[in-house]
């Protein structure tokens, strides 16, 4: 039987998604449900002097109105920061309370203050308009660069500083810099992004008054984790009385990791009003309250020798956490960022210093790549600038500093198990026709256009496991993953996974690997996820971890099934276990060539006996049934890597930037489904080009979000992209038995610096900040024209 791993199997999900048969949270309705509308702060920072709900309570159809006062009285806990980060001086990070409904002070526009439940959506809206909140407006802190000099927005958080974190050795860096021929410096802004999942957040809650069980249907990337947080920290219900279901989820990109205010409030309230509750975010609410991404202000320096060797690296960053620290908010700018900031290079000395600050803006958390795009942007801008200033070819300077062998002990934290960075860059050069660039540049020049080429070589640390490693760095939970493989008596198989697909194609990929392990057609396999009443447990999907952690748990559970199958087959075929070989779904007794299919074995496991004879196929020490589970905790992070090359053409009259060519060569280890992986890379690159050229989240000085709709927030569209030219190299990961590496975030990690390096190359080295919008580029073109005229 041909292996399914490695083949372009069509997606099992496509049938239902393309026919509109997906079942999303908003599609779920429960008899007698009420509709929730949240009253949100219109101010970025305001004291809440009073909330008058009397008129709302009398409004037609209103069933209940609840505020921060009631939720505090019921001692319902708030939202949490999932990672504890220590400052350089050894002090613990400062985290303010984040109540589900703000009671005393509102800290960002959109923060929920009260909630109205009514018989219809319109009545809930009408009721919400009648809730009168008495605000005393306070001066908002908006700009992260000013946050430390501004009035503290949270009690007990001096200078608005959550932590001042250091990774690395300042002294060693100083020494390296003292010996350098040249110091390359950049000042960068990593622009804030709104995740913009296609499906807005939503929740439907059903409280069973008899069993006292709450069922929460929600848009989550990690339903088990949501249950854990809501139970352990929220105190909403004990875990055994709380079922969390995340059905089809239409994109997350990190924004659906968090347990949000609305889920906690509606779950608590459903029990209180003894009615089911439905809440679906409007798009404006998504813009205002989904956790945002990025938002770093960075000064970084690279010490180099004249022949292009990198000697030292320093990175001073201010990271904007927004109003509150959320689940991955504190780790994203530290351990997911700092270690990767030295990139794919051997740099003898390095440090990353990050000051995370609170501002009166939406909370910032993980967003596709989480910290690693910011890291890659920092080092790859420096490297490109070093090449330019030293007059060394941009690919050559990279090759010069790549590690010569693997495992590669990266400067700050990671030991990268495998890779071949030279092969990746060579292949990218060849696919992008790097050597032909000058001719293409001249051709563009002849038609009055500026053409630039940019390169970026990246690695990233994903999987966000092993548990012992992440917990030593401050993570509040272990980030293993679980799986259960249930062989049914009649031969179909249910694979339960704690990973959660919200666009990642787990139904297909996981079925492929299970089918290969068990030797059955993948049509016989159903992948089940997203329901705490079904799978054993799970940490969910983020950090490109589904396959490298969750997928391996499935492989291991399948191996246990096969191992038990061997024992049963040996007994049935009356041979020793070591005489049985399992191949293509059959257990074969090598000497006699007698065989049992895995289906027959499963049947026997469930019906362990026969008429007229006292005889069981189950060996002594084994039990009936054929169900196995596995909790997999890998030996290391996963380290995908690659090189991307981009060519842009700029129209100096308008400043329009056109991405002409985009080549990506990635090493994801063994690839299970090339089509799905290509889709992941396409999406990631598209998001990265979005960040580099289009997307920008702008607050005004009072903390109002200026880009709160698609009229003003530029999402990239298909016509902004060329056809992506993808290639792969392959070195197997040694930290898991499949040799696979994560692929979900790589595109978004590598592409922003690739595109920006190309834009800056076209602009003759002029620095320009992301997004490189037409007007900014137009102004830079004018400056370039002036300086060229002067030079001539």
């Amino acid at each position, binding site marked *: 039987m041909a292996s399914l791993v490695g083949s372009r199997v069509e997606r099992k999900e496509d049938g239902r998604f393309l026919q509109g048969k997906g079942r999303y949270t908003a599609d779920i309705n429960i008899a007698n449900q009420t509709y929730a509308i949240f009253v949100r702060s219109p101010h970025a920072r305001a004291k809440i002097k009073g909330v008058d709900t009397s008129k709302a309570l009398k409004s037609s159809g209103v069933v209940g109105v609840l505020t921060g006062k009631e939720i505090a009285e019921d001692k319902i806990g708030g939202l949490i920061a999932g990672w504890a980060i220590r400052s350089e001086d050894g002090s613990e990070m400062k985290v303010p309370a984040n109540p589900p409904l703000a009671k005393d002070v509102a800290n960002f526009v959109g923060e929920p203050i009260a909630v109205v439940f009514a018989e219809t959506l319109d009545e809930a809206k009408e009721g919400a308009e009648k809730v009168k909140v008495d605000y005393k407006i306070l001066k908002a802190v908006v700009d992260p660069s000013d946050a430390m000099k501004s009035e503290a927005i949270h009690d007990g958080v001096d200078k608005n500083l959550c932590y001042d974190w250091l990774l690395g050795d300042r002294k060693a860096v100083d020494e390296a810099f003292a010996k350098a021929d040249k110091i390359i410096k950049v000042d960068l802004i990593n622009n804030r992004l709104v995740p913009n999942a296609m499906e807005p957040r939503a929740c439907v809650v059903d409280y069973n008054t008899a069993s006292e069980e709450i069922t929460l249907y929600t848009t989550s990337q990690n339903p088990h984790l949501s249950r854990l947080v809501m139970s352990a920290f929220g105190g909403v219900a004990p875990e055994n009385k709380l079922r969390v279901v995340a059905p089809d989820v239409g994109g997350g990109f990190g924004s659906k990791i968090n347990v949000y205010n609305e889920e906690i409030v509606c779950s608590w309230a459903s029990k209180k009003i003894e009615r089911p509750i439905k809440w679906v975010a409007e798009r404006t609410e998504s813009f205002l309250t989904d956790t945002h991404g990025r938002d770093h202000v960075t000064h970084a320096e690279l010490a180099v020798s004249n022949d292009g060797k990198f000697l030292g690296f320093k990175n001073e960053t201010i990271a904007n956490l927004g109003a509150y620290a959320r689940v991955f908010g504190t780790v994203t700018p530290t351990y997911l960022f700092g270690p990767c900031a030295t990139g794919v290079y051997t740099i003898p000395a390095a440090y990353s210093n990050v000051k995370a600050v609170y501002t009166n803006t939406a909370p910032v958390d993980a967003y596709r790549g989480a910290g690693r795009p910011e890291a890659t942007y920092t080092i790859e801008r420096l490297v490109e600038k070093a090449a330019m200033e030293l007059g060394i070819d941009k690919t050559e300077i990279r090759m010069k500093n790549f590690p010569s062998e693997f495992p590669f002990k990266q400067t700050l934290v990671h030991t990268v198990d495998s890779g071949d960075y030279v092969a990746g860059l060579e292949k990218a050069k060849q696919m992008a026709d790097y050597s032909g660039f000058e001719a293409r540049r001249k051709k563009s020049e002849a038609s009055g256009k500026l053409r630039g080429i940019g390169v970026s070589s990246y690695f990233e640390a994903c999987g966000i496991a092993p548990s012992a490693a992440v917990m030593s760095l401050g993570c509040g939970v272990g980030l293993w993953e679980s799986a259960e493989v249930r062989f049914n008596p009649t031969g179909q198989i249910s694979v339960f996974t704690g990973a959660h697909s919200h666009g990642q194609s787990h139904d297909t990929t996981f079925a492929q690997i299970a089918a290969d392990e068990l030797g059955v057609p993948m049509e016989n396999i159903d992948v089940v996820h997203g329901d705490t009443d079904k799978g054993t447990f799970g940490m969910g999907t983020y950090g490109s971890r589904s396959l490298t952690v969750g997928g391996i748990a499935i492989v291991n559970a399948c191996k246990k099934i096969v191992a038990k199958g061997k024992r049963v087959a040996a007994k049935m075929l009356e041979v020793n276990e070591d005489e049985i070989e399992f191949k293509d779904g059959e257990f074969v007794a090598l000497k006699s060539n007698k065989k049992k299919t895995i289906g027959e074995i499963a049947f026997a496991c469930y019906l362990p006996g026969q008429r007229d004879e006292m005889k069981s196929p189950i060996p002594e020490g084994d039990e009936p049934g054929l169900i196995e589970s596995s909790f997999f905790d890998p030996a290391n992070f996963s380290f995908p890597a690659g090189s991307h090359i981009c060519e842009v053409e700029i129209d100096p009259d308008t400043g329009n930037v056109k991405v002409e060519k985009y080549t990506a060569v990635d090493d994801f280890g063994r690839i299970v489904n090339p089509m799905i992986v290509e889709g992941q890379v396409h999406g990631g690159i598209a998001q990265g080009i979005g960040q580099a050229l289009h997307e920008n989240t702008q607050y005004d000085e009072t903390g109002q979000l*200026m880009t709160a709709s698609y009229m003003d927030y*530029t999402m990239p569209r298909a016509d902004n992209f060329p056809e992506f030219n993808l290639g792969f190299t392959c070195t197997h990961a040694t930290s898991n038995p499949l040799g696979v590496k994560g692929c979900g975030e790589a595109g978004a990690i590598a592409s922003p610096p690739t595109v920006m390096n190309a834009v800056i190359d076209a602009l003759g080295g002029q620095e320009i900040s992301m997004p490189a919008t037409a007007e900014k580029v137009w102004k830079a073109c004018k400056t370039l024209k002036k300086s060229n005229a002067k030079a001539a």
Partner: protein
Amino acid sequence: MKTFNYHVPKAVKEASKLASTSSAFLAGGMTTIPSLKLGLATYKDIIDIKSIKKLSGIKVSGKSVTIGATTKHAEVAASKEVQKAIPALAKLAGNIGDAQVRNRGTIGGSISNNDPSACYPSACMALNATIHTNSRKISASKFFTGMFETALKKGELVEAVEFEVPEKADYQKHPNPASRYAIIGVFVAKNKKEVNVAVTGAKSSVYIDKDLSKKLTSSFSSSSIEGIKLDHSEMNSDMHASSEYRANLVSLYAKKAVEAC
């Protein structure tokens, strides 16, 4: 969305009678419906005019192209007759919004709303259009009176827009990258007597750029407006484009339009 009375009159007279200070005519609803949904506008009565047959359709004579108020952008873009008589107009309609918008949005709705960055008003101005309403004829130069404002009175309904067929014309726009409305749009029409350069997106309402029109009237070539510096003091400045950038774009796209004629 607040509740309202929904009317579907079959005749213009009936529609007009239903109109009040708290009513709105609804055609494609590309602005009205989102405004209702976002609570930016509330009406007691919504008067859906899509069932009034005589308001839809395209008539082309030698001298003019007349487009009924509820004719959709997609219909104008696809019309062989419009493509032949005023190709620039078909091109303009074919680049409004996206396919969904073009299959709902109407010319009457667009000009009655007079969004400062809508495309159609520039064509009306450059092509000396006459706006036919249920009570009178209004020349385009008198129709667009300010930001989201027109000469229409209460109960007055646009029935059709009559464009003069020019010798040559072209429309060029620089789309807002987010909304794809015009950051600026320039409609250049070489008519029998004069050249009109109508600009949308740059100021609070569509206007004829007199400098550009005059220069092109005396010599219809891109070189006659090459490098012209426009006064940007009255131009819009927002997070998408400064007034200075808009001024640059207007002269640049005027040139492009002339070259495309």
